[in-house]
């Protein structure tokens, strides 16, 4: 047999027992040719373009899934940031635009549509201001639309006016979706150095430097890495790194091939494969458990940041060896509510928001899916965002914040968002005020890129 039994069985076990999947195939569609001064025509244009490009996505992805026998969980669309393409509308009705995106997504049966976004890392145009103020209502009146705002960058610094505004926007979004525990905030990400080809939600958008239409894939597999490490007998950290690299290599190869097949069958350009360990609430599919497999009693114990740094770096190295088209975020995600091991660590007091913040300086995203008390002031939320942005800007990496101030709930209460979003306890935040600092506004200048001590 030119394939060994071990090779075949290893792949089968990864899927059967270890939750290996392609988390998402995301089609990026440029909407740059949809602009029109009239809102109504603009909406017609984007509906038509999304449906025309995306109508075959779901059936083709399902075909490829059956062809290779590898689960492909989500099918998604990302579009050019709406704040840019709607800028030329005379009286833009952003809520109507969001609803149009939602309808288009439902028409072609995709799980999410991203790109209800703005890039304001250096400043806000009049259009950006109108766009941002529409986010709460837009997210409250749609199901599949995801929003992101890039408020900081290493070359631009941190736009503190936007940071301050986003604190209020997050509060308002939570308030408008309070009957579902503020779930609107789970569809809103604040970024520093946002990548333009990320296939993962809620932060996916189709960057302005991208092609007309591309296929990007997000491959995941925390369960596979977790199992691989637990099979090692008393390994050194070097051996652990080696094992993660090999595993990451294999799952990236698998993901790239499936995504290329989708792009070939659709006749759409292939973009990137994003190898990111994205946990799910399923048993064993946890990034926290990988860190614990390295020898930490609980995720959050001292040493967690070092263990995560090792993991993130090894995942990237394995992925880069496997494919010349690695992009997006690529690394390890640490969303609290979506990871059973993280939830346990929070519940027993091992993991705090401060430790999570430190962890984000070495992993691929940021403070993700963190539920905080409903009465957290907007300025405190802005303070958390500002800290997270500073980590990204200074370290020349992407960071993000996806925070949910759950209306009516306090620290220790439980919240359940359902599905892949999971649930968990409300985490405590500092009770000391950030208000004066946030109120100052303006811009924190771009950092120096030498003398990096």
């Amino acid at each position: 047999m030119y394939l060994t039994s071990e090779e075949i069985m290893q792949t089968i076990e990864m899927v059967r027992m270890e939750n290996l999947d392609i988390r998402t195939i995301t089609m990026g569609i440029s909407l740059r040719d949809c602009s029109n001064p009239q809102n109504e025509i603009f909406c017609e244009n984007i509906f038509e373009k999304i449906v025309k490009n995306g109508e075959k996505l779901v059936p083709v992805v399902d075909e490829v899934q059956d062809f290779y026998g590898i689960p492909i969980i989500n099918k998604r669309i990302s579009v050019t940031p709406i704040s840019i393409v709607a800028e030329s509308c005379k009286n833009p009705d952003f809520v109507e635009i969001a609803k149009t995106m939602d309808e288009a997504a439902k028409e072609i049966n995709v799980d999410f549509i991203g790109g209800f976004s703005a890039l304001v890392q250096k400043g806000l145009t009049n259009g950006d201001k109108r766009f941002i103020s529409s986010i709460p209502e837009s997210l409250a009146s749609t199901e599949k639309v995801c929003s992101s705002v890039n408020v900081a960058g290493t070359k631009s610094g941190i736009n503190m006016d936007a940071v301050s505004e986003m604190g209020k926007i997050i509060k308002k979004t939570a308030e408008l979706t309070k009957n579902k525990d503020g779930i609107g905030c789970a569809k809103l990400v604040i970024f520093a150095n946002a990548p333009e080809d990320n296939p993962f939600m809620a932060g996916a958008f189709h960057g302005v430097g991208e092609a007309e239409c591309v296929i990007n894939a997000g491959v995941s597999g925390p369960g596979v890495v977790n199992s691989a490490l637990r099979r090692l007998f008393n390994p050194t950290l070097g051996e652990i790194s080696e094992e993660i690299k090999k595993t990451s290599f294999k799952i990236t190869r698998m993901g790239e091939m499936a995504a290329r097949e989708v792009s070939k069958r659709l006749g759409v350009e292939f973009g990137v494969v994003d190898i990111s360990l994205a946990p799910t609430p399923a048993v064993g599919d946890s990034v926290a458990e990988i860190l614990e497999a390295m020898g930490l009693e609980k995720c959050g114990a001292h040493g967690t940041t070092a263990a995560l740094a090792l993991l993130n770096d090894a995942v990237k190295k394995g992925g880069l060896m496997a494919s010349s088209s690695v992009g997006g975020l690529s690394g390890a995600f640490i969303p609290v509510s979506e990871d059973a091991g993280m939830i346990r660590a929070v519940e027993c007091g091992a993991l705090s928001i401060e430790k999570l913040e430190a962890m984000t300086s070495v992993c691929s995203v940021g403070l993700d899916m963190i539920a905080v008390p409903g009465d957290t002031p907007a300025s405190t939320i802005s303070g958390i965002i500002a800290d997270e942005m500073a980590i990204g800007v200074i370290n020349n990496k992407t960071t993000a914040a996806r925070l949910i101030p759950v209306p009516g709930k306090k620290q220790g209460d439980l919240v359940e968002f359902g599905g892949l979003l999971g649930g968990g306890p409300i985490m405590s935040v500092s009770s000391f005020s950030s208000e004066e600092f946030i109120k100052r506004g303006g811009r924190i200048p771009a950092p120096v890129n030498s003398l990096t001590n």
Partner: protein
Amino acid sequence: MKTDRFVITVIGVDAVGIVAGVTQKMSEFKVNIIDIRQTLMGDIFTMLMIGEVPSSGFVLSDFQDAMAEIGKIHNVEIRVQHEDIFRHMHRI
């Protein structure tokens, strides 16, 4: 002419007639077995096959449905996957 090869894996509790049932169904679909291995690990029956499918008139989803059905009868899990996924994952 290029013909596609699929890896067919059968996993489940051992019983009489699994190999016969599965291969009978494969022949109905004119799937030619070019490699076959079968082992028992404890009570767990594992069979790995590589089947070459006819270049015309073969509908993968029909074959997969038929295999799933035969799997149900014999209480085993049957997967039909294109060989490339294994080759690409493990070989450079």
